[in-house]
């Protein structure tokens, strides 16, 4: 039943010109079409509000970029100009090479590597283990199948934040503090990805499985030759969402990394800022912020179509 309604949402979604780039391109060359009861004026007002919205939403990011191209002296004497300054190369090369010593002797490159490893590890790990468990739950019949399903399902209700201390204890006992495994493994078990794959697998017609079996394909053959290619879009969408999830983690890396060279870039940024003393190297903080923001933005914007589809469909 749930699937029928989802499909309705999905089909409404596909027809929508805004979310489908081809048709939107076609219309963009034309004019805004008026619906009955719409005046041209109200369209102009809509554009004006949207532009204002874009300005508000994009301003903090733009302004960070502007700040990252000015010298510390300029930043410390507000108001800051609205246009980029002349220190772009200076600041960025300082941050990427020598200036990294400000963050406890660790360069920005190390931080970016750490964060990338963590984000990729979480995204790929989550996809692999959830696609496998969803495969087992949908395409096999075995004792305690539904029990296992519920065991996984209930983890929806146990986010990291509510079991901070005991999970930290487990990490200490297993010796996972300050390791990549410690950053990644506890975050890769989640019900959402499993549920999404399960939902998708259940829409695959039984005839397909039957045909594969008649042709002599075993479960692995079916998985790699039929199921994986069919799941490509879902995997791509999920990858974007999980990559962002991993990249923007805060509480967990704060707990499981003690040494500076295992920090993620977000945690290191927090350590760079001190408001008590006027010690903060704001121009380097701003460069680091930009470097921390750009990779996930590139991923989201480049994979926008899959990302939007995956987000809106998986959460419904």
């Amino acid at each position, binding site marked *: 039943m749930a699937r029928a309604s989802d499909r309705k949402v999905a089909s409404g979604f596909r027809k929508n010109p805004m979310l489908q780039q081809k048709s939107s391109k076609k219309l963009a060359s034309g004019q805004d079409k008026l619906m009955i009861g719409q005046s041209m004026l109200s369209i102009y007002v809509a554009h004006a509000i949207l532009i204002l919205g874009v300005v508000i939403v994009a301003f903090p*990011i733009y302004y960070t970029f502007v700040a990252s191209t000015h010298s510390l002296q300029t930043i410390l004497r507000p108001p800051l100009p609205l246009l980029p300054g002349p220190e772009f190369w200076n600041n960025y090369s300082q941050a990427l090479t020598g200036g990294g010593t400000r963050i406890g002797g660790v360069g920005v490159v190390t931080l970016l590597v750490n964060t990338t490893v963590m984000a990729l590890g979480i995204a790929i790990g989550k996809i692999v283990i959830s696609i496998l*468990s969803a495969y087992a739950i949908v395409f096999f019949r075995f004792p305690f199948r539904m029990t296992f399903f519920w065991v996984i399902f209930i983890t929806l209700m146990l986010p990291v934040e509510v079991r901070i201390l005991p999970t930290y204890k487990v990490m200490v006992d297993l010796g996972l503090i300050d390791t990549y495994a410690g950053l990644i493994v506890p975050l890769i078990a989640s019900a959402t990805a499993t549920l999404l794959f399960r939902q998708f697998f259940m829409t695959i017609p039984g005839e397909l499985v039957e045909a594969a079996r008649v042709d002599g394909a075993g479960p692995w053959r079916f998985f790699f030759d039929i199921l994986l290619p069919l799941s490509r879009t879902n995997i791509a969408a999920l990858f974007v969402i999980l990559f962002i999830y991993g990249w923007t983690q805060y509480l967990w890396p704060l707990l499981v990394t003690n040494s500076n060279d295992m920090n993620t870039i977000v945690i290191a940024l927090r350590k760079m800022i001190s408001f008590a003393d006027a010690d903060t190297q704001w121009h380097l903080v701003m460069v680091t912020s930009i470097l921390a923001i750009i990779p996930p933005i590139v991923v*989201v914007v480049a994979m926008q179509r899959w990302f939007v589809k995956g987000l809106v469909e998986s959460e419904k």
Partner: protein
Amino acid sequence: MTPRVVFPNRILPYLLLAPQLAITLVFFYLPAVQALYQSMLREDPFGLRSRFVWFANFRKVLADPAYLNALHVTVVFSVATAVVAMGVALLLAVMADKVVRSRGLYRTLLIWPYAVAPAIAGMLFLFMFNPSIGTLAVLLRKAGISWDPLLNSTDAMVLVVTAAAWKQISYNFLFFVAGLQAIPKSLIEAAAIDGAREVKRFWTIVFPLLAPTTFFLLVINTTYAFFDTFGIIHAVTGGGPGKATETLVYKVYNDGFVNLILGESAAQSVILMIIVIALTAIQFRYVERKVHYG
């Protein structure tokens, strides 16, 4: 459910499930059970011995003014964040639904904040609104508004709410746009022919039909404000000034890791768990309703 064609295999499914189950048991169930157990222990001041005290920790936590303050702060913070983030997103989505030209461009420009870590969002806003070097703080002062989020608790709350809401606008926008598109245009045009003006059309047709999306987003935004904003609080205000922005999650962290009051921190974790379970239950009830009416 219709009977499915399945693979006859006895051992393979268990192997497929093993990785997820192992991680789930070690990192989810074991800690959750420990949190439950710990929440009923009280340690002596030196942390050497602990004794079983049943629900004493819960009684103590729930009677603690600091905890009630955190609860109050969390509710104010969550409601404000949800209202601002959803209000702005709805306005933008309604506008985006009207225009055809450059729709895709608007969307591309509006989804950026989704990719920004909450903690970084907080830091960017702190940079802009920091009383000593923040450009916008300087402008506010010039406009005659006294502003100091580092000392004034209302200003601090406004700052964290702004940062948290800003980060969530993209997400809400995408869902509202999808929700608006599911509303048949003929319905709105019929109302227009009947003489209903734009504002009236919105409140009597569009808004009620959007209710499922709005309700869904309300749950999601509440969950977000409760849990995912830890980074904003930690990076921007550290719960201060005083305890003006100390949310429940921040307090669990602070009591457990900074003040090392383990039993009470665990009791707070358990209370949070109950809140999450309630929110999840509401969310699923809603999903069920949507199936019936949708």
